[in-house]
Every structure is written in structure tokens, then in C-alpha cells.
């Protein structure tokens, strides 16, 4: 399977093709979103093999529960990233994963993610293009905790020791910053 044949469709066309269960939709879906979704999953699960399993599960779930997606409620990626994030977090919580990671003493997912964060944040491990100049570090850490790790803003506030109101403001500012950056 060579990457040169990557397929790309407009979101409307893709949604329509997925609804009609067309084969091309499956390929386009993978080519367009696998890397972005894998980026999110990799933030939660560092083990590449397990992360790839979760990515596969994500696509299977997207495919099976596609009737649950409604374009009026939001963009396709927003819906899919929720599925990917939830599956990844479920995986981290599962007994199976804890055994594989030999982290039997871990009691919940929050502490597990905390421990993991130190490793995941190493740029060389992520191997991605960072938005170095765009976000202030304190904006980025909040945004990443919530977006990539599935923290609630309440949990993020506790984690970072910052008042809830500040968290909300920083989140909004971070996203406004991103919008500016991408609209440039």
C-alpha cells in the first residue's frame, strides 16, 4: 500500500459516501484522518503497537456507528476525535493495558496520564511540527490536557493548581490564538 495514492474528498462528499457505505469512503477516511487521529491516540498511549490497535478500533467504531453522526451537530473530525480519545482512555483504564504496561499499582487513569505526561511531552518522541511561537506555554499545557488527554477543565484546574475561571479563559484565548494563526 503506497502512500502516493492518498485519497482526499470534501467533507460533504466523504460523509455522503460513508452513509452509502462506499468502499472509496473507507480509504478516503483513512487517508485524510488516520495521522491526525493517531497523533491524539499517541498522546495518550505511548506504546506504538497498542496505539495502532486503538486506531484500528477507532476506525471500526466510526464505520459501525456512523449512523450516529449528524452533520448539523458539528464537523466530522470533532466527532471522530471524541471516539478516538474515548477509546484510548478506555484502553489505558483497561486491566489488559495495565498488565501489559506492568503498572498494576496504578489505580486510575488520571494518575496514569500524569505519569505519562512527562514522557509524552518530549518533542523528539512526538516527532511533530510544534506551534512553538503561537501558543504561550501555559495556554498550550491546558489545551493539550483537555484536547489530547481528555481531561475535563475541572480536572485540568486541579492538576495545574489554577482557578477554574482562569482555566476557561486560557482555553478560550488559546483557541482564539490558534484561529488567528491558521487564518493567517
Amino acid at each position: 500500500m503506497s502512500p502516493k495514492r492518498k485519497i482526499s474528498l470534501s467533507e460533504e462528499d466523504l460523509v455522503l459516501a460513508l452513509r452509502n457505505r462506499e468502499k472509496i469512503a473507507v480509504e478516503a477516511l483513512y487517508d485524510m484522518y488516520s495521522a491526525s487521529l493517531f497523533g491524539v491516540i499517541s498522546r495518550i498511549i505511548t506504546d506504538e503497537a497498542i496505539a495502532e490497535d486503538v486506531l484500528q478500533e477507532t476506525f471500526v467504531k466510526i464505520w459501525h456507528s456512523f449512523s450516529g453522526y449528524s452533520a448539523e451537530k458539528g464537523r466530522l473530525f470533532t466527532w471522530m476525535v471524541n471516539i478516538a480519545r474515548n477509546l484510548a482512555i478506555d484502553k489505558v483504564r483497561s486491566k489488559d493495558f495495565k498488565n501489559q504496561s506492568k503498572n498494576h499499582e496504578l489505580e486510575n487513569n488520571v494518575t496514569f496520564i500524569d505519569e505519562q505526561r512527562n514522557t509524552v511531552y518530549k518533542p523528539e518522541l512526538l516527532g511533530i511540527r510544534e506551534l512553538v511561537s503561537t501558543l504561550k506555554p501555559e495556554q498550550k499545557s491546558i489545551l493539550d490536557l483537555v484536547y489530547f488527554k481528555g481531561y475535563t477543565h475541572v480536572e485540568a484546574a486541579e492538576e495545574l493548581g489554577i482557578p477554574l475561571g482562569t482555566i476557561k479563559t486560557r482555553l478560550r484565548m488559546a483557541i482564539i490564538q490558534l484561529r488567528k494563526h491558521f487564518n493567517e
Partner: protein
Amino acid sequence: MENVKAYIESGILELYVLSDTSATEKAQVEEMAAKYPEIRAEITEIEKSMELYAEEHAVEPSENLRTKVLNSLIVNLGDDNTFSKTVTRQDDDNIRTIPAARLTSFYKYAFAACLTLLLISVYGLVNLYSKLQESNTQLAALQTDNTKIANQVSLRDNELQVYRDTAFKVLKLKGTAKTPSAAMVLAWNSISKKVMVDVPSLKLPQHDEQHQYQLWALVNGKPVDMGVFDLPKADTAGVKEMKAIASAQGFAVTLEPNGGSINPTMDQMVVIGTF
């Protein structure tokens, strides 16, 4: 409009896109979005930037995962039986082999199922046939039995007739001095002139192959031939009809050569009885 702006600035829309809202808040945001296009547009903007942000952090999964994922989805496609009719793109070989393999194994199982059914049918047929044979044999045996019983019944009827009909006279013949233990019973109908020997009551000595017993009627002191009979080999029911005679004072039986004699051999008389 002022409250729409305040709603946008509250930060709830960001939390909504990050799926960090309660079910109530979520429903509220969706209601607002449906009502105010500005809110809808704002949400879309937030979504787009998060999408791009994720793209910035994208990590390519390993290349072979694409095949794996597509295969697992396309197998589902086959299951759904909703393959696209327009196959304009070239398909990967390994994608095609899967439905083919499924088809082959389907025929394999279908063939195995047919074979099993055939074997079961043949076995059933053989079983049924042998049962049919058995039933036929039983039926034949029953028919024979039935005939036998019908014969016996008609014989008994005849016997009974003898005793019921007042015209019959029953005579017990007793053994002579030579054979004191011999005895037999016969019946004579003075109207129809029939003479019947009651076979089960025959108690005569066994005779050899060259001799038969001969019955005589005593008419006015003279013996009249009434025919010959053999002692039955086994227990037999029924009566034996002898020659007819209009009148007789008594009957006697002598042992005679096969076929009987014209005159009785008096010293071979075994039983005699008179009315």
C-alpha cells in the same frame, strides 16, 4: 444579539467542541446553535482550528496499518452486502481475495451440508425399506394366522351345529375286549343322513402305514361300509364327515388294509356302540 455575543465569549462553545460539557450544557449549546447562525459559525471556526491543531500534531501510523484497517472495514462492507456498484478504481489484490475466500468456504460448507443431508437420506431410506419388508412379512404371517383362525372358527361352528341340531344323535363307541381303552364319539343325523366323526375324541391304537380304520354302520344286524379314516398325526380340531346312511342301529370301527374292505374283519374291531 447582545446575549449571543456574551454567550460566545463565555467560553462554553470551546468546552463544547472539546466535549467537556455536561449533557444539559451540550443540549443547550446545540439549541443555541440551531437558533443563531453566528453561534453555529463560531462553533465551526473552533472546530476547524482544533482540527488543524490536531493536524499539526499528526503522527503517521505505520504503513501496513492502512491495509489492516481497510481490510477489517471492507470485510464489514462485505458483511453489510453493500459493496459499491461503481468499481471505477483499481482494487488492491489483497482486498479482493477476502470476499473470494469467503465465497469458496461458503461453497465448501454448502457442499459438506449437501453431502451430509444425502447420507442421512440414504440411511433413512434403507432403514425405512427394511422396516417395510418386516411389516410385509408380519402382514403375511398375520393373514395366514387369520385364515387359520377363520377355518378353526368355521370348524367349531360345524361342531357346535352337531350338538345344537336335535336331529343329530350322538353315539359313544366303546372299546372291545381286545382294546378296552379305545373310544370315540360320532354323530348321526337321521334327517340329513350325515355321519360325523368327532376327531379330538378319537382314542384308538396307532396303526401302521398299510392299514386304515374303517367305519361300519350296523343296519338290521349287517355291517355297511361308511368309509375309511386315519388317526390324525397331531392334535386336530374338527369333525370328519363320513358316508351318509338313512338308518342304523349302531356303529363299529375295524382296522382294515389301506382303502378298506368290503366286509369287516371282525377280529380287528376296536370300538362298537349301539343306540
